[in-house]
């Protein structure tokens, strides 16, 4: 075995996962290779850090809850999992796509919002850039982003968060990223790096759907264009009541709406600048105050509020946008870029996860 082959095995060596022969090779190599000794020490540190997570508190027992549902199942009334506390929040937001609010809003505002919805729905290509800033427990986080969308499967852009810039180009299954830590493209969709996602076309539609009250403000000029100004609030109570009613009708009990109910305290206001001629949304600001459950070190939990502000500007509506693939004329990747699905010399896929726009 040469140096490179041995380097590849150091992690497994550190974890006691090698056979005798390989282990002996490595032990001998280590007596003459300071680089591998240092690398082994790093792997040992990783092992110690991660092993230490065993001692963290474990969530409280679920035995009672499981057995209650097992019994229910035996009597033919197996419950849906959608309304247990934590997953309920997921169901709630899925429900933001239900177009109830637009039907209930009134007057001219309905028209502006409805027309903005129709215009957004007809979008194929566009650009969006903006920032999302959040504050929670005294910590702030800011992400800026710029995306060009050719269509759903083809887009490019950059995200800057926590001092890390990630560039990416997605051309269907050919996907590229630059500047991402190991894990590369998979890391973009990971919230710890890609901490403040971008409002996409579909998410903008969902947002318009969920508006409860809509206030009409004086028109403003934005980038030289006359813009209708609207301010709306997401009607959390109505949304949650509606969803609960719908699920009660569809699913047999027992129910637990605790998590769902906790979201009633959320306050989300949406400011819109809508082009008075095309009805495209040229700017969208979301101001959010959101209940967040925190688990403390002593095992207790408390609900605190996270404040977040998203300010996004849209442009180049349905214009021809071309992707700039990070490859040279020979098809080789430009320096610093990595490709999803690329294989290493072992034939393994280096980057397995794919970017998606929802």
């Amino acid at each position, binding site marked *: 075995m040469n140096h490179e082959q041995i380097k590849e095995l150091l992690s497994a060596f550190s974890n006691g996962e090698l056979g005798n022969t390989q282990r002996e090779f490595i032990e001998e190599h280590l007596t003459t290779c300071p680089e591998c000794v240092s690398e082994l020490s790093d792997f040992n540190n*990783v092992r110690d850090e991660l092993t230490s997570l065993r001692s963290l508190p474990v969530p409280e027992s679920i035995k009672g809850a499981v057995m209650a549902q097992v019994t229910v199942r035996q009597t033919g009334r197996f419950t849906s999992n959608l309304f247990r506390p934590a997953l309920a929040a997921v169901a709630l937001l899925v429900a*933001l796509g239900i177009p109830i609010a637009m039907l209930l809003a009134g007057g001219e505002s309905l028209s502006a919002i409805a027309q903005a919805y129709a215009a957004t729905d007809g979008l194929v290509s566009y650009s969006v850039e903006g920032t999302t800033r959040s504050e929670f427990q005294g910590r702030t986080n800011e992400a800026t982003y710029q995306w060009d969308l050719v269509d759903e499967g083809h887009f490019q852009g950059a995200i800057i968060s926590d001092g890390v810039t990630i560039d990416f180009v997605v051309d269907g299954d050919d996907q590229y990223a630059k500047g991402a830590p190991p894990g590369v493209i*998979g890391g973009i969709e990971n919230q710890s790096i890609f901490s403040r996602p971008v409002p996409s076309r579909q998410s903008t539609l969902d947002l318009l759907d969920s508006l409860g009250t809509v206030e009409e403000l004086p028109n403003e000029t934005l980038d030289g264009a006359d813009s209708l100004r609207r301010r709306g609030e997401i009607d959390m109570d109505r949304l949650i009541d509606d969803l609960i009613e719908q699920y009660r009708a569809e699913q047999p009990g027992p129910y637990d709406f605790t998590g769902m109910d906790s979201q009633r305290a959320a306050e989300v206001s949406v400011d819109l600048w809508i082009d008075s001629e095309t009805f495209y949304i040229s700017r969208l600001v979301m101001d959010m105050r959101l209940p967040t459950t925190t688990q403390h070190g002593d095992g207790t939990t408390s609900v605190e509020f996270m404040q977040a502000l998203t300010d996004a500007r849209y442009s180049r509506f349905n214009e021809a946008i071309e992707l700039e693939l990070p490859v040279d004329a020979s098809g080789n990747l430009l320096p610093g870029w990595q490709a999803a699905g690329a294989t290493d010399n072992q034939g393994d896929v280096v980057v397995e996860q794919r970017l998606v726009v929802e």
Partner: protein
Amino acid sequence: MDDATAIARVREGHIDAFANVVERYEVPILRYLSRMTGASEIARDLAQDTFLQAFKNIMNTKSELSLKAWLYKIATNNALQHHRRRKILSFIPFLNSAETDIPEPGSGPEWIDAKVDVQRALLGVPTDQRTALVLHYVEGLKYREIADVLSTSEEAIRKRVARGSEAFRTAYLPKAGGDQS
């Protein structure tokens, strides 16, 4: 009651025997899902799903079923499913952040505080690698057992652990270094 006996009794219709299964494996499954998601309430929900799916499907399994590996396999699928489901909601930035409930430094005993950065860095590791890291280092599974859980080869696990370790180190060490200065 050992695993084989418990499974046999559940198959015979003795629901109470399943309590034995939950009792034996809820701590590892809850711990595994907690470390995978960084959120205890989510972990509890996913763990409930895991055991309910196991109960529902136990009739369809082979008699020589390795209960432990099977439960980890279901739990892993649930964790990945949760990850995919989250993406559907990705436009609402607050929800992603609100989901994790890693304690803030200073909010608990010192020994727990020391682990906060470790857990945060772990969440920065790509999911497939994180799965391998948590199963190995936290749950103590051998590479062969992880390969069984994830239906892949030991060689693939060796690479995932190695790459995941690198990714973890990249995410963790700059922070740890900064804290020391």
